[in-house]
């Protein structure tokens, strides 16, 4: 412990014993004497002390089980039951003129608190503050976009933006209307609202979304937890919240690269439109909201979503996208007929109707309206939200609706060829074949197969869900969340399609120089490859990754094992590009001559390719080949040859700065070994700045290996010239 810290500690410990602030000040005056730095430090510690106490006050002594705990599903929602905001003990955090009272939830790129605005207003608000994550700038930009998007809107059914600002530490925040309400689905079910009443609420929601669309904002995450129903003067008013992932299409907010949907979205794929699932949200327009509204309507009318979120996730990314793109869910009335009697009766009660009547009331017009909103082909959906609202209004007024059942030919074209359909939860049906003839549909049930499938799926289900969610998260750059999610899943359950997840997360850790964690991820990547016995899972680039990560993590024994197995594996490969890589990844640290000899076949291959390198297009690649050979010569003790190879490499490829640096370092080390220490030192000094800059200046999308190889070599070289 440094001396100044020791002093700070002792001063702090003494000061903390003095309860009276005046006594403390007096003490510090005396003790710190003429040293303002120490005094500042101690005062800072004392200031932080209260927050520290609060942080530690909830001790970890009681880690409760999964079932306990409140269910914070709705952001900014406060249950309409009497709201007793529990202020945390001790000083609360104050941001601007708002005092934080309690945390309501998290999502998007922020956390939402209930806060109280200072005098004279003294009202309760929702304050959403940004979370600091990896790409702070990116996240701030997203947040700022959200704020601007929200500020554009003024509609009674959209939560208002009241204020915005930034904290002392520069974290932006938005202050919004605090909505005291419940999820719309809960509201309707608990109050046993009938179909007509539900439609009336839904139409109001449509108007709100339409308003947003007219302002150029797509919500992109319409689902029940984002639509709360609040009571104003006894009248239920739906409120759309969390435009947190909204994207504005007009004005200076339009910039595709910045705005991506965030992870709250990931939890409910049931609401994702086919184009959202497909393109990861890039080519999405207002009609995507219409689809989601269709799903919401479906759920309001039947109590189920057309597809089950869990099952979608379990089926894996590819399958999920395919399902959303291709599988036709049954129309609402049909779905109800497939439910068991008890389930149906329960739903009917929530709709204040009796079972048979409920089904028949949905059959026909409402079926068609819902299915039109949910068309896979967005050109066939309602063009505007208004269109949907108007059709519903026509239904309520007993006027003819515009939606029509699909023509017979059209339906035959959409006939499902596969035997599996992802169905709503609560039904025992897993396999179904839909044949559309006339106005009714049949469902063929393969019950025994379904049952067997269920058992198998149930066991694998959870992990697959997590892996799929992780994939979705990764498409949205939510690395930390994805990493956390897949922690501990054994490689055996990961399977081929998820290899990319581990590679991406390994790279993410590597980008941040968390080498231990990177190794863990890469290890699983290789395990998957070994288990599935498919070489396509891991390639030579992956060998570069894992090898370098092991060295950087300091696991030299592991690295040695790794390189030996990799050499054995690739020795007979005909691809020269691989050979060159395997050589260099195997020689990141010195190697005994036995090992170097095992590289001979690969070296021969590489050398051959070098000789055939005359066509200009290949010269760059040849430059890399020469470098790998140079490294090998160096390791083999043939220093003059190593230097010669470096020369050759430079002649062939001199524009790649990382390669140049690596080359210079091998040169330096060869010089050192030949006794030319001063030359070596000079070379090292010349390259130091560049090597240090590689990792820092890299963008997240570049491969980290390029900058790490010179770093590894530099360390070795530096140690060498010190001797």
């Amino acid at each position, binding site marked *: *412990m*440094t001396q100044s810290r020791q002093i700070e*500690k002792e001063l*702090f*410990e*003494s000061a*903390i014993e003095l309860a009276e602030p005046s006594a403390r000040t007096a003490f510090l005056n005396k003790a710190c004497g003429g040293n303002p730095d120490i005094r500042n430090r101690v005062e*800072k*510690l004392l200031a*932080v*002390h209260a*927050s*520290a*106490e*609060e*942080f*530690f006050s*909830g*001790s*970890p*002594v*009681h*880690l*409760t*089980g*999964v*079932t*306990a705990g409140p269910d*914070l599903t709705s952001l900014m929602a406060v249950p309409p039951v009497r709201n007793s905001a529990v202020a945390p003990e001790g000083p609360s*955090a104050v941001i601007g003129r708002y005092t*934080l009272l*309690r*945390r309501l*939830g*998290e*999502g998007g790129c922020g956390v939402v*608190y209930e806060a109280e605005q200072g005098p004279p207003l003294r009202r309760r608000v929702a304050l959403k*503050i940004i*979370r*600091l*994550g*990896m790409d702070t700038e990116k996240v701030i930009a997203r947040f700022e976009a959200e704020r601007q998007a929200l500020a554009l809107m003024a509609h009674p059914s959209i939560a208002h933006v009241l204020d915005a600002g930034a904290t002392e530490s520069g974290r932006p925040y938005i202050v919004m209307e605090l909505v005291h309400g419940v999820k719309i689905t809960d509201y309707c079910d608990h109050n046993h609202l009938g179909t007509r009443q539900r439609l009336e609420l839904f139409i109001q929601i449509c108007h709100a979304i339409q308003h947003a669309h007219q302002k150029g904002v797509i919500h992109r995450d319409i689902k029940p*937890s984002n639509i709360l129903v609040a009571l104003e003067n006894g009248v239920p008013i739906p409120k759309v919240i969390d435009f947190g992932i909204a994207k504005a299409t007009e004005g200076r907010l339009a910039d595709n690269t910045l705005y991506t949907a965030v*992870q*709250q979205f990931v*939890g*409910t794929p049931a609401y994702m439109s086919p184009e959202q699932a497909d393109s990861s949200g890039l080519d999405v327009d207002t009609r995507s909201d219409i689809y989601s509204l269709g799903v919401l309507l479906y759920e309001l009318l039947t109590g189920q979503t057309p597809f089950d979120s*869990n099952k979608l996730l379990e089926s894996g990314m590819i399958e999920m996208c395919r399902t959303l793109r291709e599988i036709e869910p049954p129309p609402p009335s049909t779905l109800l007929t497939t439910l068991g009697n008890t389930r149906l009766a329960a739903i009917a009660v929530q709709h204040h109707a009796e079972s048979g009547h409920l089904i028949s009331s949905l059959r026909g017009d409402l079926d068609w309206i819902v299915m039109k909103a949910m068309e896979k082909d967005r050109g066939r959906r309602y063009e505007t939200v208004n269109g949907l609202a108007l059709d519903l209004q026509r239904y309520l007024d007993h006027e003819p609706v515009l939606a029509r059942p699909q023509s017979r030919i059209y339906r035959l074209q959409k006939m499902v060829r596969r035997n599996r359909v992802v169905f709503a939860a609560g039904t025992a049906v897993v396999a179904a074949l839909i044949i559309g003839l006339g106005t009714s549909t049949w469902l063929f049930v393969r019950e025994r197969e379904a049952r067997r499938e269920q058992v198998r799926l149930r066991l694998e289900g*959870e992990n697959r*869900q*997590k892996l799929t*969610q992780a994939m979705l998260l990764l498409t949205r750059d*939510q690395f*930390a*969340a994805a990493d*956390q*999610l*897949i*922690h*501990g899943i054994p490689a055996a359950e990961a399977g081929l399609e998820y290899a990319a997840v581990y590679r991406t997360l390994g790279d993410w850790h590597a980008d941040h120089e968390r080498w231990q964690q990177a190794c863990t991820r890469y290890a699983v990547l290789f395990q998957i490859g070994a288990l599935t016995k498919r070489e396509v899972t891991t390639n030579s680039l992956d060998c570069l990754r894992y090898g370098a990560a092991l060295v950087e993590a300091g696991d030299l024994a592991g690295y040695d094992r790794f390189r030996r197995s990799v050499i054995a594996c690739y020795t007979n490969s005909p691809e020269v590009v691989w050979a060159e890589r395997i050589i260099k990844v195997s020689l990141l640290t010195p190697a005994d001559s036995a090992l170097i000899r095992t590289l001979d076949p690969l070296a021969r291959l590489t050398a051959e390719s070098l000789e055939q390198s005359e066509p200009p297009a290949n010269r760059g690649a040849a430059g890399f080949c020469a470098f790998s050979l140079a490294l090998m010569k160096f390791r083999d003790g043939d220093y003059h040859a190593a230097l010669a190879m470096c020369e050759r490499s430079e002649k062939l490829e001199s524009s790649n700065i990382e390669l140049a640096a690596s080359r210079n370092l091998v040169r330096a080390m060869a010089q050192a070994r030949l006794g030319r220490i001063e030359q070596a030192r000079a070379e090292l000094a010349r390259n130091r700045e560049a090597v240090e800059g590689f990792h820092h200046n890299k963008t997240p999308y570049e491969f980290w290996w390029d900058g790490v190889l010179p770093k590894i070599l530099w360390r070795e070289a530096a140690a060498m010239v010190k001797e």
Partner: protein
Amino acid sequence: MNDVTLILDAIARGEGHASEELLPLVYDELRRQAAAHMAGEAGGQTLQPTALVHEAWLRLVQEDSRTWQNRAHFFRTAALAMRRILVDRARHKRSLKGGGSLEKVWIEGMDLAGVTAEDQVLLVDQCLGRLEQEDPESARVINLKFFCGLTNGEVASILNVSERSVDRQWAYAKTRLFEIIREEI
């Protein structure tokens, strides 16, 4: 004489490597007990490190070995073991929430007003390393207080210092660690 007692005596004699042998034994015992606790309790499923650690002490160490030095070693080891258990559990909880409830996914970051128990454990674990390098004494206090839930008095007897001293050290350790946590996030 059982294994643990033998090891403790070896440690007391100054045989350094014996410390490493102690950890796995203690860890196993604590984990077993934690699992048993969890299985037994209906619904609540709370995990109380203090009780576990004390029980482990009673079960593993024989009467005549309970000198204060052995106590110190044992509890320090137990703190390490408990830390691992709690961190694993917190991570597991986090990932379950991420996969299961579909509403909350843990993001790196910190909010001050209302950290969950799991966040707390993980944050402390993450940043404790830095504190260990800077100030091993404070880190030791954190281990014993936070991961074992020992009282100031118990910590005092383990470290063989006065209770007031522990009060002060604990206050500083918390504050400094919290500063580090804020910096890291």
